[in-house]
């Protein structure tokens, strides 16, 4: 299988989905009434206030969380448990610290039983795609945060997933690195097209990256607005100052404006409630 061989499809169908978190009396509904279809190879950004359940929805797509109601299917097959065809990139710190960068990227093929020489060669190809060919032998701790996220993207893409799920993947990076990573991601996506669901609370990021932005309400999260983005690709930085972009940004700001007296909610994770000490 060559690097650029396309995944077969990547269509997502969500119908009447609701997700509950917590146990017993403390349980609450994080998202409800989610109806959504994402065609193959679309780049969708989920935009919403902190704690609105966008990461929770992503966790359900990845198979780490179960639905309380409704259905969720990839290419017509219901999602049940994690699978390499649904790759997920977390915000930070998910590379195996005890594996060299190249071994981290080769992890998926290793799990499939690909031989050592072949999987390392493939991992080096994908490291070249994210511009880190010279760092293959390093340990993750020797890399900057931005470089670690690039390794993370290569590690997920080597499995040629049907969908790429990203949970604020650049949220922990400084502004400069974040802009660079956004352009890198678009560049990779044009060469290795796949369906992307990208969670962010950064309006500029969502509008710059996506084919479509789904704005979510505060908890319980529902989809408030489904905004198609027709900006031509390839996109450059100058896009963010164009009048159409600014107008859409204003619309998103209005949708996301917190209602009076509502304190910001704690961030949720694709694995459910934030765990104490799981920094």
């Amino acid at each position, binding site marked *: 299988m060559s690097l650029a061989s396309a995944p077969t499809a990547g269509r997502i169908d969500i119908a009447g989905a609701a997700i509950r978190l917590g146990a017993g009396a403390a349980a609450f509904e994080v998202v409800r009434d989610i109806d959504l279809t994402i065609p193959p190879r679309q780049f969708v950004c989920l935009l919403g206030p902190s704690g609105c359940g966008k990461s929770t929805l992503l966790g359900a797509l990845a198979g780490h969380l179960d639905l309380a109601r409704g259905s969720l299917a990839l290419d017509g097959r219901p999602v049940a448990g994690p699978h390499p065809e649904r790759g997920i990139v977390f915000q930070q710190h*998910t590379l195996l610290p005890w*594996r060299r960068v190249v071994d981290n990227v080769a992890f998926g093929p290793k799990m499939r039983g690909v031989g050592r020489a072949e999987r390392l060669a493939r991992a080096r190809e994908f490291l070249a*795609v994210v511009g880190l060919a*010279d*760092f293959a032998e390093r340990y993750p701790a020797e890399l900057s945060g931005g470089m670690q996220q690039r390794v993370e993207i290569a590690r997920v893409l080597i499995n040629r997933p049907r969908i790429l799920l990203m949970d604020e993947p650049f949220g922990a990076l400084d502004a400069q690195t974040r802009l660079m990573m956004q352009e890198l991601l678009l*560049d990779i996506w044009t060469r290795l097209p796949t369906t992307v669901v990208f969670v962010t609370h950064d309006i500029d990021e969502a509008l710059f990256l996506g084919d479509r932005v789904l704005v979510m309400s505060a908890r319980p999260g529902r989809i408030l607005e489904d905004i198609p983005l027709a900006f031509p690709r390839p996109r450059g930085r100058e896009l963010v100052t164009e009048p159409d972009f600014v107008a859409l940004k204003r619309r998103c700001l209005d949708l996301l404006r917190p209602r009076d007296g509502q304190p910001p909610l704690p961030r949720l994770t*694709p694995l459910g409630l934030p765990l104490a000490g799981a920094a």
Partner: protein
Amino acid sequence: MSAGTLGAPGVALTARPPARAEPRRLSPLPVHRLAIQAGALGLGLLAWHLAASLKLDLSFVTFRNVPTPAAVARAAWALAHAPKLGAHLGASLARVLGGFLAALVAGIGLGLAIGRSRLAGDLLLPPLEVLRPIPAVAWIPLAILMFPSSEASMVFITFTGALFPILLNTVHGAEAASPRLVASARSLGAGPAAILREVVIPAALPSIVTGGAIGMGTAWFCLVTAEMISGQYGIGYFTWESYTLQNYDDIVVGMLLIGLLGMGSSVAVRGLGRLAMPWTRGGRP
């Protein structure tokens, strides 16, 4: 089509790695700190010498029968040239290593099970918590009754000493494996066995090494107790025999030998641990 035809990304992101950081080593201490540390040892020796040679008697504790450092040094010199030293050392090393390795296998196995499975924890922890406070010396009668040879019962007693530090540290390490690492490994196609091998065990390894170093220390700690059963050889036996034979100089020689061997083998465990964990050596450049 290969990566070559795809080329490097269009944006300027290819970076050169900086020179690899040297593996972290213990930097030599400055001379004045070395001098202070050597001086402290010297002061300790001097205090011992004074107390022993003056036969200091403080009524609640007396140094009347405590040998002087010089007497101990002479006894150590004599032991170093005695043919029985090798037999003593060999017997003790074999017992400690046997008990330690058995504790390593049992401690890591049980610890991983307890750390990763609530059922295993509920089944195993209550009986283990009852056994944990029992000191090595209390095991002697039962160990003699339970094992066919005195050699096996001595190995068992060092095993009881080493087991719990290894077990508890392994449990702690296995519980601390990040749920995010586990989740991302599952999303990359790892099954339960691969999660254990690729994520949980490496994540627990620093704790396991710490437990091993402590367990190695306590195994030596239990040696005198264990070798009370011995009829012939062993450093612990030598120490105890010296007391019954009133060779007071040799008691201290035996004690110091146990201390040095225990320290040396704990250092060896930590060194082996560092070799097994190359990722902890480098730092952020």
